[in-house]
């Protein structure tokens, strides 16, 4: 009987001691709280999303390894009896890893942005280049192959833009490279035609042709015709002064120098009118037949044959005229004018009138400028 009051007294006393003891124990546990890993997890998620593994594989690996170690440390502490948990070191690591993650995220974002900017800038350049090639191919009738390559290049550019929109930078860069290769191929095939228009020795030769023709017109007081292929104009001089100027159509390969029959090119050189055909006598309203081929043309034709540049069966051709039918049309090599312009010209010229056809008289012509635009790194 005595035992019970003793026990109850002991328990009372025990509680009185235990309670402050427990409070003391918990109070003594001054460790910081368990670090919140969610923030780092979000950073990790974002790093994963922006392809950190691709842009900074070593740093991202290190970040993930440190994060794993932090998690393991927290797990280790969590496994302990709550009195013995100490998150101080975990908390320090947490701050370091968070800082590192934020720094890595910023650095990768910068890399991605710079890649994006580079891609957009290259696309802009390619689009400019494609535009110039497009204009030049239409101008010089570069043919199916060139247009095909240009179209395929355009498709690649369009694909690159779509890839960029969905943040697929590597895919975009691949498409950009592909577009660049295709445009290079298209460019090569037109460069062979238009590079003549930026050769100063050839331009000087053409200038001399023009000057001599105008001098002849002035000296003899006669009419003379100058055809400028780059400008697509026909100018008539009388007594050395320009009196008429019309836009013209030339051969479908008119920017090339005529070499053989059927090449669609418009000849370059000094010619004369050898026949005038009025209405009803020409398929194209009225026509002025030129004495093509001249001696120089024959020489060039034979040289090209000897070199094997043209087929052995090729003929030199002829029937190069200035005729009506409209300036918009392309011809087989002739020079086409609007019918009412042809009327004006027809009555002012005669058989024997000099006709000089040149590529260009200015090095800064449209074709050479186009080529320059392409070569200036677009």
């Amino acid at each position, binding site marked *: 009987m005595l035992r019970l009051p003793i026990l109850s007294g002991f328990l009372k006393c025990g509680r009185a001691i235990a309670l402050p003891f427990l409070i003391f124990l918990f109070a003594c546990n001054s460790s910081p709280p368990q670090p919140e890993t969610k923030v780092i*997890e979000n950073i990790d*998620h974002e790093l*994963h*999303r922006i392809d950190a593994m691709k842009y900074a594989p070593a740093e991202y690996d290190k970040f993930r390894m440190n994060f794993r170690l932090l*998690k*393991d440390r927290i*797990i*280790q502490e*969590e*496994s*302990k*009896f709550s009195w013995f948990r100490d998150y101080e070191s975990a908390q320090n690591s947490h701050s370091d890893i968070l800082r590192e993650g934020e720094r890595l995220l910023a650095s990768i974002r910068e890399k991605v942005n710079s890649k994006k900017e580079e891609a957009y800038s290259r696309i802009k350049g390619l689009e400019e280049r494609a535009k110039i090639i497009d204009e030049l*191919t*239409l101008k010089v*009738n*570069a*043919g*199916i*192959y*060139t*247009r*095909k*390559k*240009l*179209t*395929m290049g*355009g*498709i*690649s550019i*369009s*694909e690159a833009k*779509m*890839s960029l929109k*969905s943040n*697929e930078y590597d*895919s975009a860069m691949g498409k950009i490279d592909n577009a660049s290769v295709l445009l290079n191929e298209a460019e090569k095939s037109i460069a062979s035609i238009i590079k003549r228009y930026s050769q100063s020795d050839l331009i000087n030769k053409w200038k001399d042709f023009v000057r001599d023709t105008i001098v002849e017109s002035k000296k003899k007081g006669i009419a003379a015709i100058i055809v400028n292929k780059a400008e697509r104009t026909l100018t008539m001089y009388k007594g050395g002064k320009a009196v008429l100027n019309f836009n013209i159509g030339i051969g*479908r390969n008119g920017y090339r120098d005529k070499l053989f029959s059927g090449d669609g090119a418009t000849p370059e050189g000094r010619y004369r009118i050898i026949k005038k055909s009025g209405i009803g006598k020409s398929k194209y309203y009225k026509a002025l037949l030129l004495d093509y081929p001249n001696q120089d043309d024959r020489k060039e034709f034979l040289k090209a044959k000897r070199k094997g540049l043209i087929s052995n069966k090729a003929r030199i051709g002829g029937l190069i005229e200035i005729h009506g039918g*409209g300036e*918009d*049309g*392309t*011809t*087989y090599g002739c020079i086409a004018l609007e019918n009412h312009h042809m009327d004006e010209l027809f009555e002012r010229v005669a058989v024997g009138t000099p006709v000089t056809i040149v590529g260009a008289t200015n090095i800064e012509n449209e074709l050479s400028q186009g080529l320059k635009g392409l070569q200036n790194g677009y």
Partner: protein
Amino acid sequence: MKKIVKILAGCFLIGLFFFMAGCAKPPTEDIDAAKNAVESAQSVGAEKYLPDNAKKVVNEFSDALDEVKVQDGKFPLFRKYDRAKEMLASAKGSAEKLRADTITKKEEVKKNALAAMEEANGAIGNAKAMLEKAPKGKETQADIEAMTGDVKGLEDSLPDVQKAVDGEDYEGAINKAKSIKEKADAVSGQVQQAIEKVEAAKKAKEEAKKKKKGKGKK
């Protein structure tokens, strides 16, 4: 008597220990099941088609494994895997859903890619038909030749769409098909413009002729 009590107490403690230990076995089967579900989702291309969801599921599984680790680290008598089991079950469920969603998404993207390819093909056919209708003559020969080249470029690009579909690069296939369609429509538009231009010129010529005739009669 004391001996018997001691033996009984010993047996009770051993039994209790085994009972406790038996209750707190690591959920190996649950881990394997969740892991298989995650891998299965990854194998159907979850990372490619639903990258955000895939990452979330991997994280969920990783958190569940961490909870297992927390319990593993505790004194055996205090281990409780109930929460870990719940987390693993949830991760498994998410992974299974991810797998199903990925398959649906993949099918959807594939369907879109095939539809885009069909549209591109149709647009090329339309451009070719328009080109056939284009007014032919010395004046238009160069333009027709240029546009024929354009269509050739489109036709030569179309097999790449099929290649991309075959390689399960559906997004790439869609992008290419859309680009081809865009260009094909542009060619059709150009041909249409050319036709209208020629027709307008014809009309103008006819009207001019009529006017001339009218003036002559007066």
